[in-house]
């Protein structure tokens, strides 16, 4: 009796494994389609809505002044101090050391460290 049960279990597991493998392949195939079609859409979506709602209360940690979102370089810019905070993967990086100085002529990668 137990041998029957065991036998059934084994066949079920084998079926599940095969299905799982197929499902894995299917999952791998569909993202390719999805990404090709809506690559730009997804990229824009990941960045636009996040910023609009965040900008309401996000300020520069150094001067506590509001920031301006720059869509071209994908940064948050503080005009007074002339620094830009990068946005990576839709997450704004508000660490002063990681901000970029915006010079009129050149832009260096060093930053003003807090006192």
């Amino acid at each position, binding site marked *: 009796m137990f041998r029957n049960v065991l036998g059934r279990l084994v066949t079920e597991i084998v079926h599940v494994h095969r299905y799982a493998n197929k499902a894995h392949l299917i999952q791998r195939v569909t993202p390719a389609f999805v990404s090709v079609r809506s690559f730009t859409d997804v990229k824009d979506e990941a960045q636009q809505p996040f910023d609009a709602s965040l900008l309401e*209360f996000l300020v520069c940690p150094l001067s*506590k002044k509001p920031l301006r979102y720059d869509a071209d370089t994908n940064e948050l810019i503080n005009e007074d101090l002339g620094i830009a905070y990068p946005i990576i*993967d*839709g*997450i*704004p*990086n508000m660490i002063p050391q990681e901000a970029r100085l915006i010079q009129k002529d050149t832009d260096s990668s060093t930053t003003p460290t*807090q006192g």
Partner: protein
Amino acid sequence: MAASMRLLFRRVIRLSHRNINVTAAGVSRGSGCCWGPSTCRCFSDAAGDSSTHFGFETVPETEKAKRVYKVFENVAQKYDVMNDAMSLGIHRVWKDMLLHVMHPQPGVQLLDVAGGTGDIAFRFLEYVRSQQERQKRRASRSMQTPSWQDISNNYSTEDVVESQESRAVVCDINKEMLKVGKQKADSLGVSAGLSWVVGDAEELPFDDDQFDIYTIAFGIRNVTHIDQALQEALRVLKPGGRFMCLEFSKVTNPVLARLYDAYSFQMIPVLGEVIAGDWKSYQYLVESIRKFPDQEEFKGMIEDAGFYCVQYYNLTGGVVALHSGFKL
């Protein structure tokens, strides 16, 4: 298998010896400096280059933030798994307790600092959503036979309720932890009302009087200047806002304390090595817990920062303490 266990034991003993040596060296260095002939130079050095603790090690303050960053960068991927393994799943109970004590109502803004993988923020959103449903159910139950007046009133007030959406902002200094958290959120399908920001707890990128609740769960002992973080918390909270901090603390019962110490120093780094492949980070974890002030001292620090009605709840016999204060 026995050989590897022996190796592990030897490592434990070696590392614990190293810790004792380091603290002894730190003490001797400090006292030598004070009594040396060049006291003037010593004072100026101390003023410019003050040191703090990194676990049982003494490091310059500028170093600590970098080393903490590296610790969490290394453990980010396995952070949640390790939490479950080390605390035997009890950390979920602690975080649920935090939410119960917080008891947030719909429409509340939460700032979760050192939120990393977002545990508190997820629980917060779930709690608020279930609260909203409870309220709706209660309202509908009391309105089984509405009059025409009630129905017309209902139509006009529906929009007002929707505008008060609760929002959770997760702030962490470490990008890797936030990335893991964001992936979790995407896989759970939770994104409404959830924002992720990389920021320093000592210098928050938020304006004054913004948030109703500020939480920091198991993060404040990693901050270099705890008083600055507390002052920032006071600044960004609205008047009437609540500061809540979950942190490992001193165990009150001596028997439990002995067991807890044995477990901390012998099991946890081993688990760290086996599961996350990182002994040192988890050694830092248990050492930093010992260096953190106890319940009363931390309560004093919160009061010094300007919070009122500060109280703490001991969870699991003092292994974890939940501190709460209000900005009035």
